[in-house]
């Protein structure tokens, strides 16, 4: 009865040291976030405002996204619209072709991951260089991110040391993070200076001003866009925010929620192209406008991709990003995967103990756990309900709706206590993995009551 997630999580946990490190490290990030939140007495008010602003914005999305596009064009940017991943990739490839760009330097963008932009461009002969350190490490390893803010959280320093020895010719056996980061700085500096185009994501697009706002700690978005003559922005349509007043709420929440910093090092506002250069903004739908019509799941569009829900999720921390079959893991990823393709990504729905911690940390107050609960209700009609679980639930219901039978079962149950161990603790018994079964009471509450023992 195991889902893909359950199986992959089991493998992850088998490496106990890795699991403990992953769990404890991300738990510390969550605690850093708590400390920052506690410094702001208005924290819960900010979350409420963020939620309300997002609900307003996404339910007036046609107005705001058009205003943003018009404003950006008035500022001198060139705006493109992409219905899906394919259109997004085609547009970017065409822009690069027009400018005869051979090398594209990228800062972090989950949207380009969603659209599989890198393999698309690479197969067409474009050299693509990720410039966020974590992303670069993974690109050199040919691995996907396992976390949306700390993409290489699952990689050990020794692995990075070995990788850099081979690719960047660093000292043998040196896996000091400071040393390796410095080596990456030198290596990527050269890429920034020689790339024909820089691609960034967008944390926010401001409708009133046309600003594209990008938040980084490394400064890689700014390094890329300071040298290349071409700046391409890949932006999901739900990233639009009405004005600076609204933006100020999100900027205060984002870094605090994501990494427990009061602000990212760089909060960059790209309003106009650099003199003599071009700025292209690709606005991507790729299923987002369909979600607007789904009352149960519309709130996923409030997400600002801070990953606080991953850091707090006790299941994510103990199973790692690769245990999830969708490219975004954790509570938000479970939901986004189901919205993308339930038949393909239903395996992740089991990865939740319904503890509701994600609802509480989310800076935009997305009802993440409630949505997972709702997906579970739909698995049956999707034909993806787990058979054992269904049988168990059906069996329980059969007994529970028949009080007499329930009473009889309560009387007979203690017999199980005497069943030989090997019959109970075997591979079929998921409970028995690491846990003893509880013993049935000699006399149930109901029986005691019937016998007049409770007065």
């Amino acid at each position, binding site marked *: *009865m*195991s*889902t893909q997630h*359950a199986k992959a*999580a*089991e493998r992850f*946990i088998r490496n106990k040291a890795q*699991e403990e490190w992953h*769990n404890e490290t991300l738990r510390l990030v969550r605690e850093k976030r*708590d400390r920052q*939140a*506690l410094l*702001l007495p208005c*924290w819960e008010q900010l979350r409420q405002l963020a939620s309300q602003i997002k609900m307003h914005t996404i339910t007036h999305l046609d107005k705001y996204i058009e205003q943003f596009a018009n404003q950006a064009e008035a500022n001198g940017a060139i705006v493109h619209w992409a219905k899906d991943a394919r259109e997004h990739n085609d547009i970017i490839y065409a822009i690069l072709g027009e400018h005869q760009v051979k090398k594209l330097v990228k800062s972090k963008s989950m949207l380009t991951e969603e659209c599989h932009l890198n393999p698309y461009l690479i197969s067409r002969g474009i050299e693509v260089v990720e410039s966020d350190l974590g992303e670069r490490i993974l690109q050199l390893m040919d691995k996907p991110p396992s976390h949306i803010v700390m993409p290489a959280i699952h990689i050990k320093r020794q692995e990075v040391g070995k990788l850099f020895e081979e690719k960047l010719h660093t000292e043998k056996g040196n896996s000091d993070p400071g040393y390796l980061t410095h080596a990456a700085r030198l290596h990527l500096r050269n890429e920034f200076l020689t790339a024909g185009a820089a691609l960034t994501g967008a944390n926010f697009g401001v409708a009133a001003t046309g600003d594209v706002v990008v938040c980084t700690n490394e400064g890689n978005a700014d390094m890329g866009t300071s040298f290349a003559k071409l700046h391409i922005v890949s932006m999901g349509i739900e990233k639009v925010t009405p004005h600076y007043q609204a933006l100020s709420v999100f900027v205060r929440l984002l870094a605090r929620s994501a990494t427990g910093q009061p602000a990212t090092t760089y909060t960059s506002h790209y309003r106009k192209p650099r003199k003599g250069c071009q700025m292209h903004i690709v606005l991507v739908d790729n299923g987002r406008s369909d979600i607007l019509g789904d009352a149960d799941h519309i709130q996923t569009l409030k997400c600002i991709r801070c990953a606080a829900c991953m850091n707090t999720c*006790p*299941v994510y921390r*103990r199973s790692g990003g690769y245990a999830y079959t969708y490219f975004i893991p954790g509570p938000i990823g479970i939901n986004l995967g189901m919205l993308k393709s339930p038949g393909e990504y239903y395996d992740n729905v*089991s*990865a*939740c*103990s*319904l*503890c*509701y*911690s994600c609802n*509480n*940390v989310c800076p935009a107050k997305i009802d993440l756990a409630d949505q997972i*609960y709702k997906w*579970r*209700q*739909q*698995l*049956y009609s999707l034909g993806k*309900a787990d058979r054992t*679980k269904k049988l*168990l*639930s*059906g069996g*329980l*219901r059969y007994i*529970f*709706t028949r*009080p007499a039978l*329930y009473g009889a079962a*309560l009387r007979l149950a203690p017999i199980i206590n005497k069943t030989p161990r090997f019959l109970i603790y075997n591979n079929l018994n*998921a*409970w028995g*993995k*690491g*846990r*003893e*079964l*509880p013993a049935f*009471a000699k*006399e*149930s*509450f*109901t029986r005691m*009551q019937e016998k007049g023992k*409770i007065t």
Partner: protein
Amino acid sequence: MPYTHSGLFIPCYINALYPEVGVATWHLLKDLGVKPVCPAGQTCCGQPMANAGFERGAIPLLEEFKKRFDSFEYVITPSASCAVFLREHLGRTGHRVYELCEFLLDVLKITGVPGRFCHKVSIHNSCHGVRKLHLSSASELVEPPYSKLRKILSLVEGIEICEPANTDECCGFGGMFSIEEPSVSVCMGQDKLKNHLDTGAQYITGADSSCLMHLQGIAQREEAPIRFIHIAQILAAGL
């Protein structure tokens, strides 16, 4: 007083596995002046099926529940997660459902309990108790700290109260989650148990026997030197 005739709901697993919790609740309520009525034929609230994705399967159970408990002004149950489920799914009747500690503090407004319990106990905060019933402040939220379980336990004579590190992190039970994701569930439980053990407590107590059952299963397997007791049993100790 209206609450002298209150309905007592004994959840299925307490009925079958931990009837002593039901008995303690019964005696405690009586001692505090409530005459609990425990309607015959009650079974399960339906939560296990619903959390597993079979909410429709829970509907007949909810209807049965309504039939049996609709006439009571208060329905009391020694289980936070059942209380939450009933409250969220039963409309008007649901709003009359109280978890035991909640009822004692918020409705009865008790200032003393009969129990005497000279042991060190570690409080187990269940997720639904914290984040749904608000039995304590949640660590994710910026709100003044409070804990109804601590408050009520502190009325018990002789008790020493402590809480584990990461006090409101999930123990990994999660109903069907515990068998659908056994590795993660057990791993979470082991971590939780360790935090409880680190307090040096002799007992782990809480308002949800389901979490306690899961942790007890792990403790038994690992032969950990700690015992489990529902909060009702502590409050009623000696009765």
